[in-house]
């Protein structure tokens, strides 16, 4: 205000718009009055940003002036600034004139002399930030845009273009305004003789805690908004697709360099704008009304291509030309290893994209467990909330919380569940690799991160999971590095320090974070607890072997509490499924035969699937051993821990292979990521040992060992590169669903079930153990869904199915169809491959004794060969799961006719029932079903020992529904509240740490003399 009062030009009035609450207003008003007593002061507590504030001010004052000097509150004008700007506006016939902005405390340092923009609306500073003012920019020049901190604009022009975009709160409002001014045909010039000091301290001064990430987010979304609304139609059609492509590149690049936030920012910019189509269309229409120049007419003021891309290339090629707005970007590229990191991240992302090209561009087949997501988000939520879980024969135990998580993301994608499935499948491997990259971030060594990511990607556990259609394997691969990172931080020893919090808070936060992480993974992979146990055991053993127990007990504490918290988040499911009888199979989804089939050599070389040349992975042993040979201090200790973690994972699988464990193991792809991340971490630590520890030795064998270690990593990448040529990581081209459409439900014949039997590794759902090698599960109709990947409780009714099959095998029945009929089983499908022939060769044969026992049944017939991958039998004795007129005789049930065929709700069925009918409902639990006929509830009794039969007193319109108990609903509510509490607690702790950081920063600023400058 003082600088305004001291201007040589005095034919202007001053209007101050004060945002903020009453107390802010009073303080600022007093300051304004002290310097410019006749200034008008407007209090606008509800303004959303700078543009909004300007608009409010102009409503009060604007029409009285020919020109407007729009100033933000963190500048100080030189004494002749207003005079120079006005003069220049008149002389140059410019619509907008901007001053030269210099640093507040060091006026010799230039901040801005205007901007160009790139094709995508990103401002490009014409002066490099930090340039010393040597009069090199002291000529009046046309620019695309001037900084919004201080600019002079003609009032009529301002009104013509609609002023600042009021939707743009901060960042990018100036570029947007100037773009419209350009389109209106007015000149924009910089008058460098007008020097304005600028603090540029918006972030640190605001109480609403705008962070640098927020600033980046605002810049991105506002630049995109300007681009979408600024270009004419023809140019928009050309530029927008390029912008989409650029965003994809930015996202992949950000993900591969571990900058998840940056990726979110780029995607968020699009989402923010896509949600405001009407605003963009309105602004385009407004622009069309006053457009005088086409886009090409002021193109010379723009720069071609992408500024971001140019900077990236310049940084990688060591180009010296760098411009100030890219300082943040360039800062992350200042060391050689960072450049290499960017280059390698690019190569890795390109490899991933190349290797996944057919999966990206075409449908991902329903191979193995990668079933379709045919349930809508509403169905998923409904199943979870209703208290009736339709898995198997139906159960009242809680459905997994994964239903809710999938539904939430599904809603976020507007119900596009197919897209969700594709994203989940395709993102699993990148997420795992990013996890491996992030794992060693705290070491400060980019080289270590690169090596860790490359090794983790090269180990084909993820690709094999993809090729074999293993959801659990994919998710375990994606999540394991992140879990290890949490366990690492729990040690609170080098390099995993967390300096921002107290010890108690650290442990609390770590438990919460690990609990949430395990809860998220465990929602889909129930055996993640086993993975954590293996990791923690390996870390403890590694600590013992390395002679450093520091942090070990803290890690164990966090692991135990975190696992407990995760279990608590899934408590309703666990109580319903795992706890009764302490059933291991449903919890661990165990019983895979591949563990038994894998020899130790295969386990050590991760040879679990279709990826070939895995012998080349043997070189990783050399690479991972490097840290044990060279490493010192924490490098050695963590190297030992990483190795022991791998050894524990291998050892567990080997013990399973020998049958030395009391319980069956889940499939190898779930546990092998532990070994993989252990090797990746050891290799990464080896890279740090190379940087730090090798220097302490004279030239000798250790340096030669470096060559071998490097060669090991390079050679190990060959199998992955070879697999990438396939374009789908050896995933079969077609799924079983393509051959099984004949199993689709037909309402006319009534509801039925399909019994699926096969090796757990090829079954398209998660099965319950039938014997040592086979598993089975049932589906309603022939449709297999993602929800069939969760196993339900092995309840007495389900055991009856198992018993019936065993009876057939032992020759104790020749009418298995009649035994299966009460379960509504119409088809029995033996599965021997994950995908139809000829798309996959690996066959896990159903034992002949099983198929022959089915073939020898008098009431089951084999359906003509569908495909070599399956053998299908039809049960001639089946009857619908909702039928009437049935003879309910356990020895000789007689079929009835289908009833209640109209499904009107998730657990509601309607239809007409004849008088004197006995209605059979073949869904467990029997006690939950209620039948009302003509408004009267029918008497229920248990049929076949597990199902329900109803004897309605009369005929009429009937409604069958499942009635949940209040306890069930309360349990669901508590579970939801538990998840929200954990998320809230993590956010609160994080916010508390952020506040502490800001307070620290502000204290340091207060200590500086410049901070006494008035502000509002």
């Amino acid at each position, binding site marked *: 205000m003082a600088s305004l009062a001291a201007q040589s030009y005095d034919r202007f009035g001053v209007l101050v718009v004060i945002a903020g609450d009453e107390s802010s207003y009073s303080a600022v008003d007093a300051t304004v009055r002290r310097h410019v007593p006749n200034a008008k002061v407007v209090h606008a507590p509800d303004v959303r940003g700078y543009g909004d504030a300007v608009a409010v001010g102009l409503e009060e004052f604007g029409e009285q002036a020919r020109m407007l000097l729009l100033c933000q509150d963190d500048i100080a004008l030189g004494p002749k600034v207003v005079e120079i700007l006005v003069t220049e506006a008149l002389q140059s016939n410019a619509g907008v004139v901007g001053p030269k902005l210099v640093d507040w405390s060091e006026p010799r340092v230039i901040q801005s002399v205007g901007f160009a923009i790139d094709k995508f609306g990103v401002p490009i500073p014409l002066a490099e930030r930090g340039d010393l003012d040597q009069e090199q920019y002291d000529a009046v020049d046309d620019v695309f845009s001037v900084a919004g901190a201080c600019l002079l604009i003609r009032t009529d022009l301002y009104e013509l273009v609609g002023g600042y975009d009021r939707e743009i709160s901060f960042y990018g409002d100036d570029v947007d305004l100037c773009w419209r001014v350009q389109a209106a045909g007015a000149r924009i010039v910089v008058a460098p003789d007008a020097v304005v000091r600028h603090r540029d301290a918006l972030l640190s001064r605001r109480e609403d805690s705008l962070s640098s990430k927020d600033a980046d987010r605002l810049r991105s979304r506002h630049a995109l908004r300007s681009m979408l609304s600024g270009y004419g139609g023809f140019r928009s059609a050309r530029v927008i697709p390029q912008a989409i492509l650029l965003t994809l590149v930015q996202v992949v690049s950000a993900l591969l360099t571990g900058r998840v936030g940056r990726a979110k920012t780029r995607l968020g910019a699009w989402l923010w704008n896509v949600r405001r189509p009407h605003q963009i269309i309105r602004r385009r229409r407004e622009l069309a009304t006053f457009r005088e120049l086409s886009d090409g007419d002021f193109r010379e003021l723009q720069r071609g291509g992408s500024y971001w891309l140019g900077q990236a290339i310049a940084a990688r090629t060591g180009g010296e030309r760098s411009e100030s707005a890219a300082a943040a970007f360039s800062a992350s590229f200042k060391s050689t290893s960072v450049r290499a990191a960017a280059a390698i991240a690019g190569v890795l992302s390109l490899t991933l994209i190349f290797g996944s090209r057919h999966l990206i561009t075409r449908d991902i087949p329903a191979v193995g467990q990668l079933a379709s997501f045919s349930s809508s988000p509403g169905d998923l939520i409904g199943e979870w909330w209703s208290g009736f879980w339709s898995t198997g024969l139906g159960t009242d135990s809680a459905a997994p919380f994964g239903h809710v998580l999938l539904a939430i993301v599904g809603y976020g994608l507007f119900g596009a569940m197919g897209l969700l499935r594709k994203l989940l499948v395709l993102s699993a491997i990148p997420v795992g690799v990013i996890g491996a990259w992030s794992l060693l971030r705290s070491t400060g060594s980019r080289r270590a991160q690169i090596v860790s990511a490359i090794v983790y990607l090269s180990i084909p556990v993820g690709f094999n999971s993809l090729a074999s259609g293993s959801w659990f394997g994919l998710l375990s691969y994606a999540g394991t590095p992140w879990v290890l990172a949490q366990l690492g931080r729990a040690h609170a020893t080098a390099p995993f320090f967390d300096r921002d919090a107290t010890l108690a808070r650290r442990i609390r936060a770590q438990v919460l974070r690990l609990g949430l992480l395990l809860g998220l993974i465990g929602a889909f992979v129930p055996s993640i607890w086993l993975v954590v146990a293996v990791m923690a055991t390996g870390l403890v053993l590694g600590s013992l072997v390395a002679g450093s127990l520091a942090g070990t007990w803290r890690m164990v504490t966090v692991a135990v509490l975190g696992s407990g918290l995760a279990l608590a988040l899934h408590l309703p499911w666990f109580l319903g499924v795992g706890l009764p009888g302490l059933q291991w199979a449903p919890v661990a989804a165990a019983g895979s035969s591949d563990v038994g089939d894998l020899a130790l050599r295969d386990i050590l070389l991760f040879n679990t699937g279709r990826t070939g040349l895995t012998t080349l992975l043997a070189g990783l042993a050399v690479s991972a051993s490097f840290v044990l*040979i060279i490493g010192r201090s924490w490098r050695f200790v963590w190297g*030992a821990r990483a190795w022991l973690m791998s050894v524990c994972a291998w050892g567990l699988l080997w013990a399973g292979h*020998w049958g030395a464990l009391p319980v069956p193991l889940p499939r190898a792809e779930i546990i092998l990521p532990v070994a993989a991340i252990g090797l990746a971490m050891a290799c990464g630590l080896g890279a740090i040992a190379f940087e730090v520890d090798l220097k302490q030795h004279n030239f000798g064998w250790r340096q030669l060992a470096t060559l071998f270690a490097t060669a090991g990593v390079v050679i190990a990448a060959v199998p992955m590169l070879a697999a990438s040529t396939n374009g789908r990581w050896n995933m079969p081209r077609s799924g079983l669903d393509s051959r099984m459409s004949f199993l689709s439900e037909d309402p006319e014949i009534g509801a039925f079930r399909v019994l699926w039997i096969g090796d757990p590794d090829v079954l398209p759902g998660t099965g319950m153990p039938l014997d040592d090698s086979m598993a089975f599960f049932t589906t309603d109709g022939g449709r297999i869904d993602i929800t069939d990947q969760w196993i339900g409780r092995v309840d007495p009714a389900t055991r009856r199915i198992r018993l019936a099959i065993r009876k057939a095998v032992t020759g104790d029945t020749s009418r298995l169809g009649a035994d299966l009929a009460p379960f509504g089983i119409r088809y029995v499908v033996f599965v021997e491959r994950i995908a139809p022939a000829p798309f996959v060769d690996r066959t896990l044969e159903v034992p002949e004794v099983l198929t022959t026992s089915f073939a020898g049944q008098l009431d089951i*017939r084999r359906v003509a060969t569908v495909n070599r991958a399956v053998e299908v039998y039809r049960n001639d004795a089946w009857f619908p799961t909702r039928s009437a007129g049935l003879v309910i005789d356990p020895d000789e049930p007689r079929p009835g006719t289908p009833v209640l065929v109209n499904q009107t709700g998730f657990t509601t069925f309607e239809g007409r029932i004849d008088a004197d009918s006995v209605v059979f409902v073949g869904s467990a639990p029997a006690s939950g079903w209620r039948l009302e006929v003509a408004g009267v509830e029918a008497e229920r009794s248990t049929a076949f020992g597990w199902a329900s039969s109803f004897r309605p007193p009369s005929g009429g319109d009937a409604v069958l529904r499942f009635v949940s108990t209040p306890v069930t609903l309360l349990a669901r509510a508590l579970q939801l509240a538990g998840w929200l509490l954990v998320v809230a607690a993590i956010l609160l702790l994080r916010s508390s740490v952020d506040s502490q950081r800001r307070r620290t920063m502000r204290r340091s600023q207060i200590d500086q003399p410049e901070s006494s400058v008035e502000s509002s």
Partner: protein
Amino acid sequence: MSGFRWPILVLLPALIIAALLIDGGRPSAEPAPLAEARTATVVRPNSSAAATWFCVAGVIDRDVTAAVTTHSIEIVNVGDQQRLLRIVAYNAETVAGIEPESLPLTIDAGQRLTIASELVGSTMVEVDGGGVIVEHVIGNEIGSDSRPCASTSAARWEFPAGETIQGTHETIVLFNPFPEDAVAQLAFTADTGRRIPTKFEAVVIPSRTYKVYDVSAEIAQAETASASVIVNAGRVIANRVIVKTDRGEGSGLTAAAGTPTASLVSYLPVAKFAANRPTSITVYNPTEERAEVDIEIHIGSDVVIPEFEIPVPALQRQRIDLTAADRMKILAAGERGYSVVVRSANGVPVVSELSQLSVGGDAAVEGMSTMIGSPVAASRWIVDVPITAGDAGSSLILFNPSFKTIARVELQLVDANQNRILLPEIELGTGGRRAILLSELGVTSASVLILESGSPIVAAREIISLSSISMSLGIPDASTLAEEADGFGF
């Protein structure tokens, strides 16, 4: 820290190398095939929930001499509980695809039911538990034969010793009680080599029917015609009937359920060396590999007869006339019974069948009989004796195939009055054989013998009636089956 470096550098490779070395010695986890699936007939143990029996017979033409004209079913409950039976009879008029009405019956513990019909083609007996055996008696004016019915269906059946020379008529009956049609191929290895008659390349046995195939019409003048029934779709139960009409040449009728699989070892307990008992053994190799086969003769004493070592080419058969073989002359001093063990020496499974004629001279009865070797031994056998008339020479034959273990066999007789009579224990030395006249055991009417041994044995019977001779294996208890896993002894 350096103090911990070397231990870990040594420990890790040592662990991994040691584990690799140990892992190399792990045996393969290949599941053993179920012994039960290897034999056509077993009796389900008492604890079983159900059992199904298939009694297969049929007629080509009522007017020909060789036609089967009588088919009766013998059902005996040797268990200790009453059982429900569901009997479904199929005849020539049965409509394909529709299961005929069933006849529900109950049978008490120890009870015998005989269901005789003028001509019931094939019959299925469903039982609601174990402990029930079902046999059938097939006959015509030439003779009759009594055999256990099949307790399983299969996708393949082997018949090693068929015969179609003049005066002999062979038929194969395929029974399909299942809901889908079966398609089968009948392949023969006769004197002129392997042959699949065009008519038999793809025969369709419609659902819920049986079909009779006249082998003699297609494979003419074969002294030995081994047959394979290969079912390409569905499953069937197969039975072979041979009728020899030439009087004075061992005329008679023999029926045999085939065997579902070839095996490395098979046991043929019943054989007799006598001038009027021409005996031959046929070894059939239904596989694609050449088999090296040893045929051991066990006479139950210290006398050792050198084994026959014969090669059997792929898909071929070898027939040895045991009566004419020089090495068998050692038995010529008197009529001696012996048992035969057919053992594959090179791991290629084979099927064996013993054929015996009883011809003129001083033979009491003229007749013919065959017995397909048992691929299994068992600790519990049920031997039914449905025919007792003129049983002067009828006997129970026990054979202990073990090289190491003496078998002590407890016998129980369940007579026609449902009395259970405990008989004296019989001891069988290693490789031992005993033939006991049924009359010595007190069998005077249709009865059942229940044999329980401490170790696996093989039991059979030979029934000599007024009009025929009949060799037949007993029915092993499914819960006590044992087979030589490696083909080299128990």
